[in-house]
């Protein structure tokens, strides 16, 4: 088989050295009943050409990937990925190395992670960022657990209902084993689409452990994050923000500026393909004072014996392989290569490029809204938005079907996750949408009204 170099001669020689006759002698000690039934009934191996044909055929059956004017968002966003990002992550030296336990043989990976950590602190205006988490949702859950470690006595976790359903579900699952925790959902303002200050105010008491707010939120609304952080702090809780559209951080006030204590998010927008939802990139940033309770890997700068600057994994005493059941998290393998892609992407965009892109997204989304309004289709909420917005549509599912016939993926019906929003359609606009697509979108939806 093409991946295995062993010739008959090699095998014979190795067996002889070991003092065995047949390969199966080496597993003779495995209980016979297990070996007897171990045969794997799958088709025989295939040539590379056949594997390519097989998987290409499956790929060809995903119409959604092409040919459509696409307005899907809701936590994963369509952005252009420069070829240089692929050129870097394709390097075997990055792609086929393990977690950089041996610093001397991993300076490429450790320095890149150090650069990633720095970029995330710059984007969030926080003091420390870790080497990556699985995705935005699990990072949000880890943030809540971190808050819990910071204030073990408190019990109320306030999740904005305008936080993505998947983030809320993930947090619930991660917390499900911690009996003492009580999760409450903070409703959103019916008109603005932002988390309701009134409602939050009611919950913000001395049992408040933390608040988790989408920024922008699940409706694309730019939350008054500063005000929410203040309320949280007045109650003595930990303010957590979650950002799914990372590009927004290139233009919006940074969570750190607004008083947030833990800023987490999804880095998929930073040069990662959609690939049906994963792997993405979870990021987490916090204040140095909370460093010891931070989950995940960290790379630090140090020196080698000859005084050269060098980088290595550090503060591992927080981690499972040292702390075991007292670790800050069970995470081991993270999303390192995705963090590298993000590092390359952000470096290419640069300070001005990232802001230009963010401004362009805002502009295009608002232009789309103008076109829709002109066609008599109105926004469901009035709050300020970045590049995603909810539309008021009598029957979203019908509208979606109609649009599909016009080769338009018009968005996502919010009703599935928000019964109270059965008349709302979530639309995402990025630089990947050409202006001429707005008209097609409007026409498709208008038709069914």
């Amino acid at each position: 088989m093409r991946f295995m170099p062993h010739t008959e001669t090699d095998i014979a020689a190795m067996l002889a050295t070991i003092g065995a006759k047949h390969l199966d002698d080496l597993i003779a000690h495995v209980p016979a009943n297990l070996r007897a039934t171990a045969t794997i009934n799958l088709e025989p191996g295939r040539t590379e050409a056949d594997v390519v044909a097989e998987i290409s055929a499956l790929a060809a059956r995903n119409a959604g990937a092409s040919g459509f004017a696409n307005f899907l968002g809701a936590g994963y966003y369509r952005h252009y990925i420069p070829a240089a990002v692929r050129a870097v992550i394709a390097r075997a030296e990055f792609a086929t190395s393990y977690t950089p336990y041996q610093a001397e043989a991993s300076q490429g990976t450790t320095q890149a992670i150090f650069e990633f950590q720095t970029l995330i602190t710059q984007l969030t205006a926080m003091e420390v960022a870790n080497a990556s988490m699985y995705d935005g949702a699990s990072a949000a859950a880890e943030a809540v657990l971190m808050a819990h470690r910071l204030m073990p006595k408190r019990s109320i976790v306030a999740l904005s209902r305008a936080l993505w359903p998947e983030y809320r579900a993930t947090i619930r699952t991660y917390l499900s084993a911690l009996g003492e925790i009580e999760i409450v959902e903070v409703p959103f303002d019916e008109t603005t689409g932002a988390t309701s200050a009134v409602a939050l105010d009611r919950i913000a008491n001395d049992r408040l452990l933390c608040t988790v707010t989408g920024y922008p939120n699940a409706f694309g609304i730019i939350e008054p994050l500063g005000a929410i952080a203040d309320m949280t702090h007045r109650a003595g809780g930990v303010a957590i923000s979650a950002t799914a559209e990372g590009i927004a951080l290139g233009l919006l006030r940074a969570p750190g500026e607004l008083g947030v204590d833990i800023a987490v998010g999804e880095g998929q927008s930073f040069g990662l393909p959609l690939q049906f939802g994963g792997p993405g990139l979870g990021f987490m940033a916090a204040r140095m004072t909370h460093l010891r309770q931070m989950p995940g890997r960290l790379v630090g700068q140090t020196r080698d014996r000859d005084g050269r600057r060098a980088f290595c994994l550090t503060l591992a005493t927080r981690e499972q392989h040292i702390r075991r059941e007292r670790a800050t998290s069970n995470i081991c393998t993270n999303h390192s290569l995705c963090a590298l892609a993000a590092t390359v992407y952000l470096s290419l965009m640069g300070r001005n490029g990232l802001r230009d892109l963010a401004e362009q997204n805002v502009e295009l989304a608002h232009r789309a809204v103008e076109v829709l309004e002109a066609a008599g289709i109105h926004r469901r909420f009035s709050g300020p938005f970045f590049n995603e917005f909810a539309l008021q549509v009598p029957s979203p599912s019908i509208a979606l079907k109609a649009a599909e016939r016009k080769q338009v993926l018009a968005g996502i019906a919010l009703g599935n996750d928000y019964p109270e929003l059965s008349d709302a359609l979530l639309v995402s606009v990025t630089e990947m949408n050409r202006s001429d697509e707005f008209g097609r979108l409007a026409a498709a939806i208008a038709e069914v009204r």
Partner: protein
Amino acid sequence: MASAGRIVVVTEDETSSTPIRTEPVAGVPLIFELSSDGRRGADPSPRADGARRGAEILGPELCRENLPGFPELSEPQVLRHFLRLSQLNFAQALQFYPLGSCTMKYNPVVNDELAALPGLAGLHPATPAHLAQGALELIARMEAALAEITGMDAVSMHPAAGAQGELTGLLMIRAYHRKRGEVRHKVIIPDTAHGTNPASCTLAGFQVVVAKSNRRGYLEAAEVRRLVDDDVAAMMVTNPNTLGIFEPQIQEIAAILHERGALLYLDGANMNALLGVAKPGHMGADIVQLNLHKTFSTPHGGGGPGAGPVAVKKHLEPFLPMPRLKHSGTAYEFDTDRPDSIGRLRSFHGNFGMIVRAYAYILALGGDGLGMASRLAILGANYVRTRLQPHFPSASGEPSMHECVLSHDLEKRADVSTLEIAKRLLDFGIHPPTIYFPLVVPGALMIEPTETESKEILDRFIDAMERIYDEALNDPARVKNAPQTLPVSRVDEAEAARRPILRWMPGA
């Protein structure tokens, strides 16, 4: 300006055993140090007709000042920077990388191309199911293949990594007992367990009870019988365990647990030893997680991403995480009516990009190839173990599976530590084995050669180990001062922890 960081190229030339002495040189600057105001690595798109009016639209109160300290470079500068960084790494594609418990086997390059097919890489997770049947079928086929390989009944591709698979499994165990009206608080874990096992237990709200493996390095049923009671929800066993030993009494242990209503969670991170050799399902496992980035060859990426699917027996199927795939008879769709599910642990449908690669790998090897892979992996581990036995005796007398754990007397004889041996190996262009793990073996060297490395490579590794043993006795300085041929000499990790510098700052 001068030469810095050089990477070691392993050579298989017999004649070439002279290591290289280097002098201090500086490394690659940080991306921030290469930045200069006004450079662009990406040009503004003319699409938005020149003016970027976004800030105007949102107004100043919502907008930040332009990212202070954020880098600005041209595209060639960015590319050159990261290509240079890549040259500072060891990697499986370039070096022998026998890192125990990590299964650093060859990652077929075609699989990366397949994952990048527009029909897969360009597919938005919210695409309506009827427009994503190819992707859903791929996931379904993968579930079926893993069920067949593990001898389990149902599989979820949801978890992002092995540790998340563990958490998924433990939460299912909790839900299972709850459903039966029981609340159990304890999980038994052997002393040889990987750190993620106890950490996951804590997350899942369980207390850890440690089971001792015996002198020979495996678990005795008696020990389990001693520890098990009605408050034990489950036991987590890694098989082969982290000593590379197949747990001989696993079936009896499963029986004991089941007798008391406890479940057996099998950590499948070491599945590379079991393909076509023994199926966890037949051992009595109720749940097993698999690490696609190990057994199924998805590239480890310098620390991920991977994927940690869980396979379960029928009685646990109702508790599998959301979303759950089902076939309506005409098409694949997601089953939303799963009242007993533990819910979701991440967004969307799992690390699809990794699932594609692993599926391509399974197609390439087929049932027969997978069985051969494990046998050759076991052959390699036993070959290395046998040849190194004189100076690096095995930590256990039991036969090894896909990896072997060795010890040595150099600490005593020459005050040379396992860490120093590992660093010296770097000078031979070999990535060191996993060291100081499992914890039960002092100064452990955990070696996993994998089936994709040739006998020649194993022989070179063995020669290097012998030579280092020698040096430790006759020229210890050479070992203690290693590595000498890498971009940097020994890195001061203590210093890094003492004064944490975790980000670059202007003028730093």
